[in-house]
């Protein structure tokens, strides 16, 4: 087989989900290199858009045939991606779509569905507890977080589900603990917590346990960390479900890209992954005990 290089640019492992991304990217990179002789896969992580733009440039310097990128923040990276694409490199964008997302920017888009993550959570809450009073813990003030909020709002629109409050927990356990403690102080009755991220759910659960409050029926996280999936599997009352937002999507994109490079399948356009609702019944399909996330 001929020598090809795939560059993979992903966010640095700064919280649970991104660490899952790094794990899967490296796992699939090894797999692919075993599968295709002569293929080199270089994985690079970056903490923020500006340094990711640098990383993309540096990958280009090394000479790559394809770029798989999961942008920390898509819009600021469009120019950098276009630069690569302009040189005829095959480009796959994963998860986060820029506002202009057509084939002038990329060849392949593997979409994690952020609005759907919010929508599935909202739908579940609306169905299980139609009159729920909900507090929401958001991530960081960046677009993907906003999309999840929008999806959630869309799902509960018109229902009797009521959002008491929204605050940022920065996708960080300690901050989520703090925010939850204050929510508990502020609201005497809360039915459901939606924190859209399993890392933050860890802090939320501790805060609830400490306050010994029994009014909270359950917590909906998201992303599918092994700890939370395990709880769902074990039938934990506080974590009845999880919304899948698998960090392994980066691996899917890498596999599709490799396939495109070696002309096994024509890979173009958009592949959207579901935001699957994980329940006690299907949980074991999504449990990866070896993953760091």
């Amino acid at each position, binding site marked *: 087989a001929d020598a090809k290089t795939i560059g993979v640019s992903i966010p640095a*492992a*700064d*919280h*649970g989900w*991104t*660490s*899952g991304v*790094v*794990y899967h990217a490296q796992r699939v990179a090894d797999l692919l290199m075993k599968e295709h002789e002569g293929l080199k896969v270089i994985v690079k992580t970056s903490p923020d858009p500006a340094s990711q733009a640098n990383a993309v440039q540096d990958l280009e310097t090394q000479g790559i045939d394809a770029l798989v990128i999961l942008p920390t923040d898509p819009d600021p990276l469009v120019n950098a991606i276009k630069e690569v694409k302009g040189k005829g490199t095959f480009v796959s964008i994963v998860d986060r779509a820029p506002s202009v997302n057509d084939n002038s920017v990329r060849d392949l888009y593997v979409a994690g569905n952020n609005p759907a993550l919010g929508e599935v959570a909202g739908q579940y809450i609306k169905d299980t507890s139609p009159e729920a009073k909900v507090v929401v813990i*958001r991530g960081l*003030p960046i677009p993907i977080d906003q999309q999840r909020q929008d999806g959630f709002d869309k799902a509960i629109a018109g229902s009797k589900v009521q959002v008491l409050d*929204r*605050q*940022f927990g*920065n*996708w*960080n*356990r*300690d901050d989520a*603990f*703090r*925010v939850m*403690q*204050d*929510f508990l*102080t*502020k609201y005497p009755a809360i039915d459901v917590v939606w924190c859209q991220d399993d*890392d933050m759910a*860890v*802090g939320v659960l*501790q805060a609830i346990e*400490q*306050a010994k409050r029994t009014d909270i029926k359950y917590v909906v996280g998201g992303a599918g960390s092994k*700890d939370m999936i395990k709880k769902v599997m074990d039938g934990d009352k506080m974590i009845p479900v999880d919304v899948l937002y698998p960090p392994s999507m980066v691996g899917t994109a890498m596999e599709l890209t490799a396939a495109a490079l070696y002309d096994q399948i024509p890979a173009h356009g958009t592949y959207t992954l579901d935001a699957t609702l994980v329940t006690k019944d299907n949980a074991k399909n999504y449990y990866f005990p070896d*993953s*760091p*996330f």
Partner: protein
Amino acid sequence: MAADTEMSGTVRARRSWRDVDLRAVAPFVALALLILIGALVNPNFIGITNLANVATRAAFIALIAVGATFVISSGDLDLSVGSMVAFVASLMILFMNSGAIADPGMMIAAAILLALVVGSLCGLANGLITTVGRIEPFIATLGTMGIYRGLTTWLSQGGAITLRSPEQQALYRPAYFGSILGVPVPILVVFLVTAIAAFVLYRTRYGRHVTAVGSNRDVARYSGIAVDRVRIAAFVIQGVCVAIAVMLYVPRLGSTSATTGILWELQAITAVVVGGTALKGGAGRVWGTICGAFILELVGNIMLLSNFISEYLIGAIQGTIIIIAMLVQRSLARKA
């Protein structure tokens, strides 16, 4: 009481007596004002549970900031404390998970000892690089900040490190969630540590030397003080304080991740400065420091409890409040 000890530490000229009095009291006045505002914002605020929550949460930053008071008083700066928390906590949990000791009680004791040793060594490393290597503390500890954080990420492979044994967890949990005579353990720990720190800073030879080194290094050297040793010791004290904070942190969530302790260094330094210690070195105010830590946590708490602030603007308002608190403090200090 707290303010009293502050002042007896450094008795001043008669002429500037009232002046100093107010300067030491100023952070406490700012704290009282904030509590007043909080009570107006939300009736739940003034409840025992909420105040206890806030004080307990402030414990981590307060403990770290007590250590930072030593480092800053001696004229240095330590930016690595946040990632040091993550690093020490990771090692501690990994050790507890290793099952090296069967008895959970013994295991926890050994883990605490390990945390203290690792914390001191991290502090020692900072101290040596800064003094022997003659690198500005800002840069030296920015470097070790990267190193400790990187090692943590590597240990956890980017994910979380979670305490596995439910037995250990159950046994250790009260260290954060428990209370003695109605006072949460973390608050007791903070007061104990601060009292010891105040004693060391104001009543011992070492504390005197810290002030002298921070105030004027040449003078200290000419007075036969081993300047580098004093500075290194301050970094080690900082490391021990970080380890104590970790001891309370681990039982809280029973896990660490790559995000643990991010930006805590800025919060600790802010607490120290809000508490009245000057960044240029010289005079340290330990009680002021923990007051500063409470102020910072209270500001966040009030924001969250208030109903009229857009979540997007919280950062902006927090910044404004800190500036206003400092202005109040300055104008108080200047008046007399």
